[in-house]
């Protein structure tokens, strides 16, 4: 049970926030490149899924898993994308991502007049609160990883 990393993208593909907790392997490319690759993959998955789907979708893409990790995805109606990588024992992290959006992002950044939206987030309060929230999750336990 563990949390690997979190990405927040805006609707234009800019990575607003990134942090990692128990990440064992780097992608082998610079962070900028990695964000672009991640956003590109999500963008393609979204269009892939909407074409493949046999029925009309409501929430669309929710998560995918490989043999070692699971990627949880949550998109707000404004196009903000939250991506959380965890290990396979975590079932659904939708509530977690929704909480990060409504109780941390909206409260600490949208309502903060000095935060410029659409740029990389530099709010210390947001970072520390988010870090505390992730560390407090029931499935955050670095030792078991």
């Amino acid at each position: 049970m563990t949390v690997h990393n979190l990405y927040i993208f805006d609707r234009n593909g800019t990575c607003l926030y990134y942090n990692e907790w128990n990440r064992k392997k780097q992608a082998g490319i610079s962070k900028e490149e990695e964000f672009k690759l991640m956003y590109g993959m999500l963008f393609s998955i979204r269009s892939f899924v909407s074409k493949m789907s046999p029925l009309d979708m409501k929430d669309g893409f929710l998560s995918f898993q490989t043999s070692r990790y699971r990627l949880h995805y949550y998109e707000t109606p404004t196009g903000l994308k939250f991506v959380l990588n965890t290990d396979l024992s975590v079932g659904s992290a939708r509530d977690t991502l929704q909480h990060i959006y409504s109780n941390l992002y909206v409260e600490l950044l949208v309502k903060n007049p000095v935060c410029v939206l659409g740029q990389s987030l530099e709010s210390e309060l947001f970072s520390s609160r988010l870090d505390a929230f992730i560390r407090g999750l029931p499935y955050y336990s670095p030792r078991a990883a």
Partner: protein
Amino acid sequence: MAIFSVYVVNKAGGLIYQYDNYVPRAEAEKTFSYPLDLVLKIHDEKVVVSFGQRDGIRVGHAVLSINGVDVIGKNTADGKDIIEYLKDASNYPVSIRFGRARLSSNEKLMLASMFHSLFAIGSQLSPEVGSSGIEMLETDVFKLHCYQTLTGIKFIVLADPRQSGIDALLRKIYEIYSDFALKNPFYSLEMPIRCELFDQNLKSALEIAEKAGNFGAGS
């Protein structure tokens, strides 16, 4: 619960087999009087609804048939442009059937190779060492399961999110592929699979998987 479709992708990303097992009907037919209260536009050579969602007709649905006759791309069966046809008041009242556009074989080829690359990126972006590519992709209406063999062939099954026993089914399909495609002397590797026995056995495996959800121990 249902299994929607099966794809087999070779190691280069080419689609070598595709079978639609069950296509759910999400269609709506309605008779319209002039003027049409929906906004239509052309997208990917199809006429789709872009505004005016109602009565089961959703934004993104394509025009499937007009007055009971199926359309061909963006033209009616007798070759007239659909958008122009629907602008003409003398053609009304008209009955139009809307629904999700079905995938053409070209689109299926494209989607298969798209998944092939997503699979590779999924393993590259892994935060853990030694990760495979995407094994299962979940959305609110379907789950995509993928099994890649040691030789690089991918078996992909699209199923209802509640359908169980897909992992066993994927291995069963691999077994069927080995038995009826690879052992067929007329089958050439990496090429589209056109083997009758493969088709038959795949269909029965899908039937069993839908009913029972597994193949029992040892198979």
